[in-house]
Structures are given as C-alpha cells and as structure tokens.
C-alpha cells in the first residue's frame, strides 16, 4: 500500500539514492528525487506530491528559497519537511515547515520520522 507521493529535493545524488530506497522500501512512499529548485518546481507542476522533503544547504537556490517558490504551487495541506545539519529548527518551523529532520539521518529511521510528521 502506497503511503503517497513524496518529492525529495537534495543536491547530493548519493543522499537521494539512499533516502529514496529507505522511503520507498521501508516507508512505502512513491518517491521522486530531484537536485535543484527548478527541477522541484517542474516536478510539482507535473504532479502534485503529498509531501516534500527539502534539503536546506543547496547551491544557487537554497532550501528556504526553494520552499518560498514551491509553497504557492503546493497549496495548503502539503507538508514540507526540511533536512538540515544545523541547529536551526525554530527558524525553519517559523517559515511554515511541517517538521525538521537532522542530517545526517539514519536511513532506517527516516521513514518513521517522516511518517510521524506527515500523519494527518
């Protein structure tokens, strides 16, 4: 049973691959992995996801800036979760994020953490 469609935005392909495998095989998500803000916008326009997992540290357009662009396209109710290596959860939640997951994450625990935040 699918948990839904999840858009994963991270510029590092290895991290994308690991997270994708964990979220698909353990968490039961249908994952679309992209590496930049523009790809994320294209992906959202192609098919609206049920949740977004968004890395903060990205070149060119960073996580919060990507978030600002995606937010109007996503509409309300689609949770966006930030991935960050810094202690900045408060700031990110204030932007309107549904949750924050610390990097580096344990891939086996990741699906559980995402589920805890997105459980509607």
């Amino acid at each position: 049973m699918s948990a839904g469609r999840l858009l994963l935005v991270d510029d590092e392909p290895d991290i994308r691959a690991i997270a994708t495998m964990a979220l698909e095989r353990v968490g039961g998500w249908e994952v679309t992995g992209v590496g930049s803000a523009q790809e994320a916008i294209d992906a959202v326009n192609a098919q609206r996801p049920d949740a977004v997992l968004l890395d903060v540290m990205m070149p060119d357009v960073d996580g919060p800036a990507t978030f600002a662009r995606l937010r109007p396209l996503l509409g309300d109710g689609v949770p966006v979760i930030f991935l960050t290596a810094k202690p900045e959860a408060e700031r990110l939640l204030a932007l309107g994020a549904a949750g924050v997951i610390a990097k580096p994450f344990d891939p086996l625990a990741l699906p559980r953490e995402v589920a805890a935040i997105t459980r509607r």
Partner: protein
Amino acid sequence: MGVVATREADRLAALRSLNILDTPSEERFDRLTRIAAAAFDAPISTVTLIDEDRQWHKACLGVSGREDDRAVSFSAVAIERPEPLVVNDACEDPRFADNPLVTGAPNIRFYAGQPITTVDGFRVGTLCVIDTRPREFSTEQLALLQDLARIAEDELNHKELAEALAAWRESEQRFRAVFDAAAIGIVLVDGTGRFIEVNAAYEAMLGIPAGELRGLPAASVTHPADRDGDPAMYERLRRGEQRVRREKRYVRPDGSVVWASVTASLLAPGVSIGMVEDITERKEIERIKDELVSVVGHELRTPLTSIRGSLGLLEAGVAGALPPEAQEMVVIARQNTERLARLVDDTLDLERLQAGRVDVDPRPVRPAELLAATAQVVQPVADEAGVDLRWEAPESLELMADPDRIVQALVNLVANAIKFSPAGTCVRTCVETRDGEALVSVADDGRGIPADQLDAVFERFQQVDASDRREKGGTGLGLAISRAIVDQHAGRIWAESESGQGATFRFTLPLYRAEGTVAVYDRRATGREELARAVRRHGRRVLIFESPEALAASSERFVAVVTDARLDADPGVPVLRSGALGELPG
C-alpha cells in the same frame, strides 16, 4: 687563629695578584725613594713588600740587597697596623735592639715606615726611610711620609686597576659577542616591564634597533591581546618559580605579527632575562595542520555518512535478503565504517576543543544530573561487559559545568574504565568537594597504569599496551578529549594508579558559589555574553544587565560588578554608587 691565618692568606693572594714581586726596578717607584731620601735627609729609603717569608724591595736606595728574611724586617712589623711605624732608636727598642740589620749592615738606628695597601684594603708593604743614627720625626714629616706612601700605593694599584679594567672589557666583549651571536632573542627586562638590554637576534626579530628598544615597555611591542600575560609571568617568577614559559605575539612596526616562545627567569631582584624564540613558522604549520584536520574531517564525513547509510539499508535487507556470507561482510563493513566515523568525529571534536572553537558555557548544575545522563549512555556498554556501575554524588552540591561537555568527558572516562574492567568487577564514579572545588573520580579494578604512563594516557592515540586499540575498540582520543573539556572548564585532570590495582581518573570543576552573585553589564550584547561566560567559569551565578540603570534598579545584592565599559566614562555609572552594591572591587 683561623681568622688571622685566613686574612694572611687573603693578603698574600692580594699581593700576588699585583704581579709585582721579583719584577725589575721601575722608575716610578725609584723616583719616590729618591724624593723620600732627599726630603728626610736620610741615607736609605725603600718601597718594600712583605710576602710569606721575606721582605722584598721594589725600589731601594742606599741598600744593596733586594730582600731579607721576613723575621728581621721592620716593615713586616709596620704592616701589622694601619698607622706608620716610627722607631727613633732601634738600639733602645726591645723589638729591634738585637736585630741583625741593627747590629750589622746596614746598621739601622732610625726607621719610619708607612704601610701601603691594595684596593681591597690589604697592607702588603711600606714606603720607608731609614737612618743609621737615632732621629726624631716631626708630625709634619710624618704627614709628608704618608703623602709619599699614598703615591706609592697609587702606583702599585695603578697596574692592577688597568689590568682589571682590561680583563673586564675583554669579558664584557666576550659576553656581548655571545649575547649578540645567540640564535635566539635575549632580553633583560626590569621590574616595571621595560627593556634594559636586548640582543641582535631580538632586534632582528622585531625589526626595531636595540637603541630604540632600551627603556621601552615590553608591552609596547606586544600584541594587545597578549599584554596581560607579561605581568602574570613576572609575578610567577617573583613568587619563586625558577623558569616560566609562555607563547605570545609581538607586533613589528610594519604591523606584521611574530609568534614567540618566551622562557623567562629572574636574574636578580627586579631583573628578569627572557629567551625569545621565533615560532611564527611553527604556529603557521600548526594552523595549517589544524585546518587540514578540519577540512579533511569534514570532507570525510559526507562520504562516510553515505557509506554507513547504504550499508545499514543493505544489512537490514531493505534491498532484498542477502546470502549469509554477503550479510556477514556487510556487517563487518558497517561496523568498521561506524568506527571510522567515530574516529573522524573525535578528531574534529578534539581539534575544535583545543583550538578553543567550542563554546563551553558552564552553568550551575547538580552532579547527580551529570551522572544520570552519563549512566544512560554507558549502562548498555557495562551490561555487555558484565561490569557493575556505581554512582555517588551529594544532593546538596552544585557545580559549574557545561552539562553536554562534562557528560561527554564522563562518558569517555567511564567507558574507558569499563573497557579495562574484568567482568564481575565494578566502576565507581563519585563527586565530592575538596579544597573548595568539586572533585570527580572514576575508579576501576582493572590492571592499572604504570607510573611512567600516568600523564601519557591523556595524549592522542596513547595506549598502555600497543595491542589495546584493536582489542578494546576505542579511537584513542577519548582521554585527550576529556582533558581538553576539563581544561576548558579551568579544571585539572589526572590519573592515579598502582599497577595491578586498578586506576582512578580524577578531575576538578569549580563549585557554584550561590552566595556570590555577580552582576555583569555591558551595553554591547556580545560583550555581555563574553563577560558572563568568563565569570561563570569561576563558579559564580551571574545576572546580566543591559544598562547601569537596570542594574541599580535590581533588588539583588551583588558581590561584584563586572563590566568592560570604562566606569568613569559611562554616564550611567553614578547611579550605581548609591545603588545595589555591597562592595565594588577594582
């Protein structure tokens, strides 16, 4: 007796050091005897020196021999006292009546001799006039004899003074040459911190001529951030430490910075000597090394995270079940990746702690909380090893610690103790007060540490037994990290052990002093935080104020106010005078 003998030995040494005995006649002395003989209308006049067993005439007029036995010498008697010896008629004098020089040639009847002394005050001989008939000697004549003796004395000592001066110059030049040829800087500094003398190497290191440095306060060439250290160093010397070493920065006139290692000793009261070595290059290499460690560490972290993540997924069968042998290999790979990741984390941690780039922020904390947090981490390790953990901390105690950091140090110490504890034994952690500090001890019943390695165990990658690292699975950095953490808390850490009887690791932390709340105020937010942190490190509770007005309005009473504003220049300060203060230490 002994004193007299010693004085005579000293007198003889002084005489010999004149290097005049048995030298040829010299006009400068002959001239004096001619004057004396003429002035006193006497047939004989001599400048006579008395050595161990004879009298010897440096100048003699009217006598043929240059020496006589000391036993018959009138002058030997004369030098026993500082006053002149006058013998009006030797035949009438019981001391000399049967003297062979009286009964035979040169038939002395009259003798007047004035002792002459060396610069050190030793009477080494006389200037004397002698007649073959009895005579009276007037006070005026005595005065004239003394004047002439003074001249003889000057002549005698002249040579010695000149030689001493030459020797001193030579030694001074030799010292100066060594001083200036020294490869490291040498400075002499007075008690007020001003340069007395500097050598060529120091001159070159600072790019300032020695002439300009002399008299200048050392602080004026010291980096502003390092100025406090010089008086502190001098104070330690004054309190009796033989040698004090520290690293400091100098600033050259062109603004460039020189790192130096300074080793100072007290040369005399109020004069210290400093050996100053340029360590700029070493510091630069250290900086590059630290940077390299930091960069490599961070660069290693990213791929390690990916490897660990991938292996974790494989091991959990997320990508499908693995054949048993592949599963085994994946477990080995995953475990070693984790160990490598720990090593990278510990290396980065240690580097950041040592470079002071970790904010250690002590605050009042109950030791029981620290022990509980530590227990949570190490209990599973202890269970696995079959080691019992015991904890003991008085409820009432509060100490100043950054809980996260001190727990990290405690985890390292306890985990280390567990590693070396045989199953069935226990590891005891206790906190107590001693000498106004908190003393934390972690004791085990393991094999102990040899006395010569008690200090070394705190070094990086140091293990008592070379095989330990593989067997015990540590990174070899735990104790070094613990030491760095304790250092940051202004505490001390050490190990005690009797080989074969277990080891005890101890460290100290400041106690929280509830009775002494300190007010901190600074108009700048960053300044306030820095000051507060510094004060907390000394175990005081701190209240922070943004202005003196707010401070004055507080109902608390403070033992001190710490501020880095200039009190006299701050318009808000007068309100404090009547305000909340018990006392205001300078």
